[in-house]
């Protein structure tokens, strides 16, 4: 099998005020080696030639690291493949004649801009209130004066790999951003550099999460299941631990 025909059912919405709805398209000559987004590129070329507005979707690096893409494919954020951002999904995952349903990541805190493109600036605002170490340029000590146990450093790195795509929010029945926030809290709080600000950071970020309209975490674990970079749900436990210690 090398060329397939794929049936697409895609969410189209002109703006935040538009109600939106699904449109169906059929695309033939889909190669198994195409990436999922390349398949959508091919669809858009076809639509443009037919004088139909192309489907808008976010993407940039197409290497699974920038976190721009985040569509929901057949009900699953980033599609069916574990630990894979949708830009890294390939059409070999599908069979000739398959129907694929594509939607934006839905959450009250992610208003739709157009089609599959949403506004995720709420995630930036969570970082803004405390997702950093307050060190000014030039104020840093010699790097090796801060030894960090290798295991601690590796764990911090695992949390730090979050790409900020928002799939965790889309997958969560509560639209919680706990995995995103937990990952940053756990990354910074576990390191000696982040230790002095751990209390302030945790409280501020958790509070901001609520202010932005994200729901609370009730341990569904859907976030971990769809996370393209495998952020562990233990980050949420770390965040709660830090929060309790900070407020008690």
């Amino acid at each position: 099998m090398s060329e397939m025909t794929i049936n697409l059912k895609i969410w189209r919405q002109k703006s935040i005020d538009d109600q939106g709805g699904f449109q169906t398209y059929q695309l033939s000559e889909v190669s198994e080696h195409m990436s999922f987004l390349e398949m959508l590129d091919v669809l858009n070329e076809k639509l443009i030639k037919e004088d139909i507005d192309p489907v808008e979707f976010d993407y940039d690096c197409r290497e699974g690291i920038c976190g721009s893409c985040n569509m929901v494919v057949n009900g699953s954020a980033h599609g069916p493949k574990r630990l894979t951002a949708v830009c890294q999904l390939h059409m070999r995952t599908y069979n000739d004649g398959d129907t694929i349903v594509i939607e934006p990541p839905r959450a009250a805190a992610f208003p739709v801009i157009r089609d599959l493109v949403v506004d995720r600036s709420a995630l930036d605002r969570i970082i803004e209130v405390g997702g950093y170490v307050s060190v000014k340029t030039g104020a840093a000590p010699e790097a090796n004066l801060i030894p960090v146990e290798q295991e601690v450093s590796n764990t911090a790195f695992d949390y730090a790999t979050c790409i900020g795509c928002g799939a965790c929010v889309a997958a969560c029945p509560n639209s919680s951003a706990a995995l995103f926030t937990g990952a940053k809290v756990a990354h910074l709080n576990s390191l000696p550099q982040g230790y002095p600000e751990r209390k302030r950071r945790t409280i501020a970020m958790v509070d901001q999460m609520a202010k932005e309209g994200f729901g609370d975490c009730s341990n569904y674990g859907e976030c971990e299941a769809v996370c393209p970079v495998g952020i562990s749900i233990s980050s949420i436990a770390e965040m709660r631990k830090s929060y309790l210690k900070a407020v008690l």
Partner: protein
Amino acid sequence: MKLDSKVPSGPLEEKWNRHLKDIKLVSPNNKRKHKVIVVGTGLAGASAAASLSELGYNVQTFCIQDSARRAHSISAQGGINAAKNYQNDGDSVWRLFYDTIKGGDYRSREANVYRLAENSNNIIDQAVAQGVPFGREYGGLLDNRSFGGAQVSRTFYSRGQTGQQLLLGAYQAMMKEVHNGKIESFTRHEMLDLVVVDGKARGIITRDLVNGTINKWEADAVVLCTGGYGNVFYLSTNAKNSNVTAAWRCHRRGAAFANPCFVQIHPTCIPVSGDYQSKLTLMSESLRNDGRVWVPRSKDDSRHPNEIPEEDRFYYLEEKYPSFGNLVPRDVASRNAKLVTDDGLGVGDSGLAVYLDFRDAIKRDGEDAIRAKYGNLFDMYQNITDENPYKQPMRIFPAVHYTMGGLWVDYNLMSNIPGLFVAGEANFSDHGANRLGASALMQGLSDGYFIIPYTIGDYIAGEDLKVVGTGHEAFSEAADKSQKQLDKLLAVKGDKTVIEFHRELGKIMWDKVGISRSKEGLESAIKEIRALREEFWQNVRVPGEANYYNKYLEFAARVADYFELAELMALDALDRDESCGCHLRDEFQTEEGEALRNDEKYSFVSAWEFLGVNGKLETKLHKEDLNFEFVELKQRSYK
């Protein structure tokens, strides 16, 4: 146009410190009266914005992505160089400087490169203090790996995601300042023009990509950190939205464009699989530490690579360059991949690939050790190709990766338009004709954290910058021009899509302005580019309208700029009758097929002045002579 590099006098080791001593300062209470615009929020932009804001300036940042954290610096895999000498292998600022200037094939400024090497250590300190999780040894101290073009281990890394971790560090520093109310961050905004008043950069024009509004922004200085122009080739390792538009529009306003033909083709990328291919994926150069590059010795060897015995394998880099082996610089590795595939020895369906084999490293260190070092890269490879690199060699091929050329800047990183500063990949400054691995992150952060914050103060303190007001005619003229161009693109309503044009342009560039160039090829490329550009404006089909989110309209405006840049790149390559670094002219090679420089005639930076486009690109070449006081120019040898 006058090009004054403003390199301070004195011994190499003292230039930067002396300059810092002489630089004018802006007092803290005056800093808050000044506004600086930073365009682009990658390593250079985010670090510059954070540092300027910490100093007290009012900063506005603009990026095209939906978050400042998504700039393309995020994709850098391998690492960042610094002259810490933690490995006790004889590294020093001088050696990092020397490797970088030699790696650039002696086409960069000594003083700039030395300063870069000096700043390298501060960058590591800064990043570690921010909580960037670099790889560490069991003792808790920082680890290093080796990279191409160097014989010491000086590369700091965060697994295969060093760019991501450094960018998040800079982005977080920037967000801290947003929280402090000193940075106003605008996302999904694209710069479409530079506003020049009385010869000085006084603002920018942007388009809000969500609703299409054209906006005017005034400032005392503009810092352009908008990355490179590799996407002129259509296929490259750059992110899809990386583009030259901001830089090119500055060029159109009078900023000189330097060394446009210096483009780095990265040797280790995943080969093209079909026409629908939208981008190429890089496999970090760090893989060449353990992977061995080879092709079959004979043309028609159709055996599975695992079945080809040692004697039938041509480890061409190890054989030709015994002392550097697989760790030769990128340009040398790419050129040799092209040579063996031109000879018909390429592998895979297209014949446009070579093997990168980990068999021996796995045998030596075990699969777990290799997984610990490169796990995410191996996963990425397997995901894309459906082949398991632990069990069979990777197939790799060169791809356009980085552009050493860019807007011309002086030692202060200011362009020839006063008030327009350019940092990171967008400027031409530090890598000469070839960039060494793990040096892009270093340069972006050196520019942003440790150079721009000082040199901008020197400029602001020395100028009388009266408020202009966005009502000034220069603002309206630039805004109208931006809007009119978009309207014009939408009005063509032709038959060929933007992507089709871009792909065709990319093919001309890859075939004739790519890994190797010739006079004949370049002359025909220029004709083809002009003809295709003409056709573009007659026949492009841009969907939708300008007053809402419309990605294909964004692309159309960017491709329009690529069409002009492409011609300039070909002209620059044609003018440079020598080979140096990544610029290989077929006519100028040593007997062994290595780049043959002509230091007597071409030891200069070519800086092009834009005069207009009228069927052809009207342009004028200015030269900044490169004077080498401290290093001896040699034929590069990695044998």
